[in-house]
């Protein structure tokens, strides 16, 4: 497949991640609307699902979801900036790196908060 034969640079990676994260979040949204529907239809089942969210595996999945959302949101913003202001095309790489800086700055603490119940005891911080 051509996508793998071409040596990607920043712009292409940014797009590939954007697309992958977009589709991943979409899949989650589909599931999520269904589970919200259960709140009304079958609250018990819903509560069980919430258990899954709260489990260690669920928390890791949430971190991944959050990462996808955060990346997609930041890069989406980058695309919007470039769209609205075509002169910014010159700085598209810088903007991408900037979005990674924010991603790390926000994402690491965020992941920590979500994972605290899982990794907290191991680190001795408590849940």
């Amino acid at each position, binding site marked *: 497949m051509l996508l793998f034969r071409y040596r990607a640079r920043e712009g292409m990676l940014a797009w590939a991640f954007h697309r992958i994260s977009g589709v991943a979040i979409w899949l989650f949204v589909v599931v999520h609307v269904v589970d919200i*529907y259960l709140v009304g239809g079958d609250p018990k089942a819903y509560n069980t699902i*919430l258990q899954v969210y709260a489990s260690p595996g669920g928390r890791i999945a949430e971190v991944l979801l*959050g990462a996808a959302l955060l990346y997609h*949101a930041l890069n989406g913003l980058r695309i*919007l900036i470039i769209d609205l202001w075509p002169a910014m095309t010159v700085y598209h790489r810088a903007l991408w790196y900037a979005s990674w800086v924010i991603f790390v700055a926000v994402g690491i603490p965020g992941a920590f908060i979500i994972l605290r119940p899982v990794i907290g005891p191991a680190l001795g911080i408590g849940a």
Partner: protein
Amino acid sequence: MVTIDPRTAGRARPQGSGFELFVWYVMRITGVMLFVLALAHFSILHFLFDPSQESATWIATQRWNSLIWRVFDWTLLMTVLFHSFMGVRTVVIDYVHGERPRLLLMSALYIVGLVLFVAGTSVVLTLPDKVL
């Protein structure tokens, strides 16, 4: 010798319906909205609260007891549905070739979108009364 009308040399003029422009535009508007709504939603449910504290009752009594939050979540739902389904539509146009498979997939996509729209809306509208 065929005479060629200079103005049509090359590709015939395609019929732009304006739909693509509409999608492009709304993708961007919903994108901005989602930047606020989706990130806020995620932060509230994961950073302010934690799934371990949440339950169906909690949602019905705490979160959706005020109109503001219902409006918020309903807006989020609409925005995300439009944005993500139109996003996936782009992906389908890109990778699914052939008229029939594409038509099938697109129809499925739109139907699922519609179902989710109805389901989601009904939950947001009716949920608190049901649970209480």
